[in-house]
């Protein structure tokens, strides 16, 4: 029973070894030529132009929230799709109501202007 978990333990060990070993190896073997740019926080290889601690447009948050709503909708759709044949008409109607309510929400935010970017 407990031995079933042995592969996980091995996997964990490999993870720790790999995570600790690679930085160690690169610090031992790699050349070391420090410069001011290299000490900056790493951000996809591009030199940062200003501090990240500034105010963001509220539109980002609205977009993120909208994304979550439709993300969750698709999560509900997948399990529903596997049993829609057994549920017959009832399943279609039920999911139709669910999607309709979300769709009306989309109409609402559209009309309220939440989708226009400045």
């Amino acid at each position, binding site marked *: 029973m407990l031995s079933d978990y042995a592969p996980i333990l091995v996997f964990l060990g490999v993870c720790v070894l790999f995570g600790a070993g690679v930085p160690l190896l690169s610090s031992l073997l790699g050349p070391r030529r420090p410069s001011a740019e290299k000490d900056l926080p790493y951000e996809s290889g591009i030199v940062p132009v200003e501090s990240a601690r500034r105010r963001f447009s509220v539109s980002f948050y609205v977009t993120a929230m909208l994304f979550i709503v439709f993300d969750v909708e698709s999560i509900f759709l997948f399990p529903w799709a*596997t*049993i829609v044949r*057994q*549920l*017959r008409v*009832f*399943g279609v109607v039920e999911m139709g109501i669910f999607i309709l309510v979300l769709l*009306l929400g989309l109409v*609402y935010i559209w009309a*309220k202007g939440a989708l226009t970017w400045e």
Partner: protein
Amino acid sequence: MSMIAGLPLATATPGGGDLVGLLPEVIVAVGFVALMLMDLVVPPSRRSWLAGATAAVLAGAFAMSVWGWFDAGPAGRTVYFGAVAYDRLSAFVNCVVLVSSLVTVMISPGYLNRRGLHHGEYYALLLAATVGMMLLDAATSLMVIFLAIELLSISLYILSGFARDEERSQEAAIKYLLLGSFASAFMLFGMALVYGETGHTQLAQIALAMSHPGPLDPLLVGGVILMFVGFAFKVSAAPFHFWTPDVYQGAPVAVTTFMSVATKVAAFAVLIRVFDDAFASYYAHWSSVVIAVAIISMVVGNLAALTQTSVKRMLAYSGIAQAGYILIGVAVGVAVPLGVQGALYYLAAYAVTNIGAFAVVTVMSGHGEDLDSYDHLRGLWFRRPYVAAALGFFLLSLGGFPVTAGFFGKFLVFAAAIAAHNVALAIWGIGTSAVSIFYYLRVALLMFQRREEGEEQPYAWPRTSLLGGGAVAATAAGTLILGTAVPLLLTVVQLAQAGTLPGAT
């Protein structure tokens, strides 16, 4: 029947009888979506139409709930595969919640116009919160309980921040959101433990699993207590009350009116259903915790209310104390049926009285700031005698004076405590309510204080509109009726109490 990952999958579909059992909730839910869309087409100057439509939806749901009381019968049943109860307890509490909602809609348009907050979302959010509360009082499954609590909480988080330009309102919203999420996490953890130990999410089957004799299951006790913590937060019982005064004070007072009453009523209904029925066999393990929370709430709420100088904060602490009194009924409800009946009576009495008191504050709140400081009430009697008399009457009822609704609520829960041989609990209740009379009367007497020669009027009270005055008059009449026509409501709560867990047998 198909199999997914070894679990049998039920593909039965609910029938028309299921929809009938959920009709009041469905009406309000459809109204919520419709109101949201109406807001898009109704011009801003005609926002009071939205209030009319909201009132129509609530009245329809109220009529269906009353019909459901008779249709469900004494035993009641569950619908949607045991997820939701269709019984007299849910019909009764639905009615209380819907009336609270309706009174709020009556006082809202005038208040929102004066404060410049009249946005269409208000009514849609109010209906969303109402659906959450109605589902909560009917829920017989842990999943539905959690979903309903989230539905009502999220709507109220938004509503308490409805005065967007005011720092206090923003603070109230963020405080409520953070602490509310924390409490939801507690409850969810408790539900997970209960589910893990019993293997069921439906209350009737949990009750069956818990009644099997065997060694005590400490994880199950932990789950029960954690769930209680979550509910205690929602009913703002001490020591889980720290959000209450700040949120009640910061939120626009029309919102406070609604949330101080309806949330508490719905949360107590589910507390009664879960603890006094589903967890009845673990009574010995949770009753001492509930009694302790009841005593702490009564002491902390009443003592803290003594030192307040803000009407809203005083009513918030008074609400904490009232939650303590209702918890007495819940705590002894398994041993004596009078406990649950007293709690239900108290809920109806508290709802009509407290909503009346807050309605007076709402109706008297003018342009600019809400009426809040004690000073703002000084001399109200000489300018607005009817409103002042009503507020005085509500405060007497909250203090538990005879011929008011509050008296019989207190009387029944104290009698239940004595019937359960817990005289100490009754004495704590009587002692603390004696203290409470001091601060209720202090506010009531302030209204009769004349101002000195040449002194400015402390607050510009607006004129009472027909709707606002009607709401105050109706709640005052309700307070009087519940305080005099006692047998009527007592019969109702006795019928509601008989069979609070359909499908258990």
